[in-house]
């Protein structure tokens, strides 16, 4: 493991390597408590063509902790946000790193990162069934949370016609006097 980088060094580390492929970098700081000590967060939007290289580049710096992948249905695109943390293990040094990638809904495909971070398997399987994203090269393709007989073209987190609206029932209205 190399020396721990500060917030500015870390953003520079990515900017130097990928330049225009990084669509935007936002740095946010939030203070808390009486001493108003700050926690820093980097929100980074990247182009999906360099996605895997960004993760590799990140691992080259330090093996990150992947908390989870979250996702948004933005209409034409599907956004995946990878929530990483780096620099943990030292008091108040941790940096949150949220890497977001947008995929077109017509062809929502992204490479699996399980070969680099095996712990991503559960969350990748979840994204596959909940957002209808195709994860290329995922070691385990089965359903995770949804039952095996769940219809193939319904994705619970989508907001269009492939969403789960038709399954919704107002259970609390049943048997109401």
């Amino acid at each position, binding site marked *: 493991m190399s020396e721990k980088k500060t917030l500015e060094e870390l953003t520079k580390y990515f900017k130097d390597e990928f330049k225009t492929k990084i669509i935007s970098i936002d740095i*946010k700081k*939030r*203070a*808390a*408590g*009486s*001493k108003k*000590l*700050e*926690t820093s*967060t980097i*929100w980074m939007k990247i182009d999906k063509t360099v996605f895997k290289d960004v993760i590799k580049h990140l691992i080259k710096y330090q*093996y990150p*902790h*992947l*908390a*989870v992948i*979250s*996702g*948004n249905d933005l209409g034409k695109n599907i956004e995946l*946000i990878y*929530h990483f*943390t780096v620099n*943990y*293990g*030292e*008091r*108040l*040094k*941790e940096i*949150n790193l*949220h890497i977001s990638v947008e995929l077109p809904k017509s062809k929502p495909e992204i490479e699996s990162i399980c070969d680099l*971070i*095996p*712990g*991503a*398997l*559960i*969350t990748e399987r979840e994204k596959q069934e909940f957002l209808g994203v195709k994860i290329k090269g995922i070691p385990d393709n089965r*359903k*995770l*949370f*949804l*039952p095996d007989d769940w219809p193939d073209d319904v994705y*619970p*987190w989508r907001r269009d016609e492939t969403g*789960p609206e038709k399954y919704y029932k107002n259970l609390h209205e049943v048997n109401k006097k």
Partner: protein
Amino acid sequence: MKSKTTTKTTYNIPVGPIHPALKEPVFLEFEIDGERIVDVDVKLGHVHRAIEWASRKRNPIQILYLAERICGICSYCHPAAFALGIEAAADIEVPERAEYLRVIQAEIERITSHVLWAGVAAHEIGFDTVLFLTWEMREKMMDLTEFLCGNRVTKGILTIGGIRRDITKDMLPQITKSLDYFKDNFEKIRHIFLDDKTIKLRSQGVGILTKDDALKLCAVGPTTRASAIKKDVRIDTSYFAYGDLDIDYITPDILTGEVNGDVYDRIIQRLLEIKQSIDIIEQCLDKMPNGDLVSEPKIPKLLNQLKKVEGEGVGRHEAPRGEVIHYVKLTGEDAPFTWKVRAPTYNNILPWIPMLKGEQIADIPIIAASTDPCMSCTNRIGIIKDGNRYELRKEELYRLSVEKTRRLMR
């Protein structure tokens, strides 16, 4: 020489979906060779309640109570992470006194949860007297929770931008009394867990999670710290009032001088954390400044303010079982556009696989329990062998576990 009989010497045992060692129903399929576990497969989703979907019809204040019901034992940390996420997205500043009160509640929850876990772990290896001892202690903490929050389990104490109830001067004696009781009795359970032969026999060298595996499989909380990875949201980042407090990472080598990453280390880890939590509460009571409890006491005004916000935020909180992370995206509507919840057990499932491989059937309960999926009760297991189907009930599995303890004691 090829033998004519089938070459497959292993057989499969399904465990779950409703299972002795797991709080949430999970289905595990074990490939067994004799008594040894060769491979494990995990299937989830038996109680997927679509909570994130339910949030689409609710405003942030309503979601607080929905979040509280994600888990009965962590009924504080989910609303806490959600509130942190909303506060980050809407840039709400929380009054200082509220930050300290939030820490106190979080630590009370940690003590309650860890003591509960200690009891359940003892039960899994057939040491039921310890179960009753620890749960008697836990009851004191539950009474304190009820005294401070108004209810025992669903605390309903957190709100966006602050906390709903204050700790006034006349409440302090009751809190110190409970903490003193805990400090007196802590020594007792420490002695039982760390010196008792029974517990050492069953937990040392069992269910090992190496540092490398813990890192690669993204384990969180006491599970990862017991494998010597220093990762604790309370210490890594500054949120609530944790930045002001004097705290440090806890790993099992503080006590034993070495880290093995086995079940015994995870027991030590949690016991040390109970002690740390008591210390944190005392620090908070000492340092707590005076001031407001909520940034915006008028709820309709707060809701209107949140309705105008466009942005996203992430809330992270160290729950008893590890890091809880909530992602919230607000787009200027009543309900948040996206709300993604990630509970600690989600990340602690994959580490089960290296822990369980190579262990015995009788060790399944204690290993599964050691990551603290509170083992609520149980279910049955079917053993399929030679085409005949045997039913192995929870009682049976538990009996196997108890028998192993007896065997080792001899």
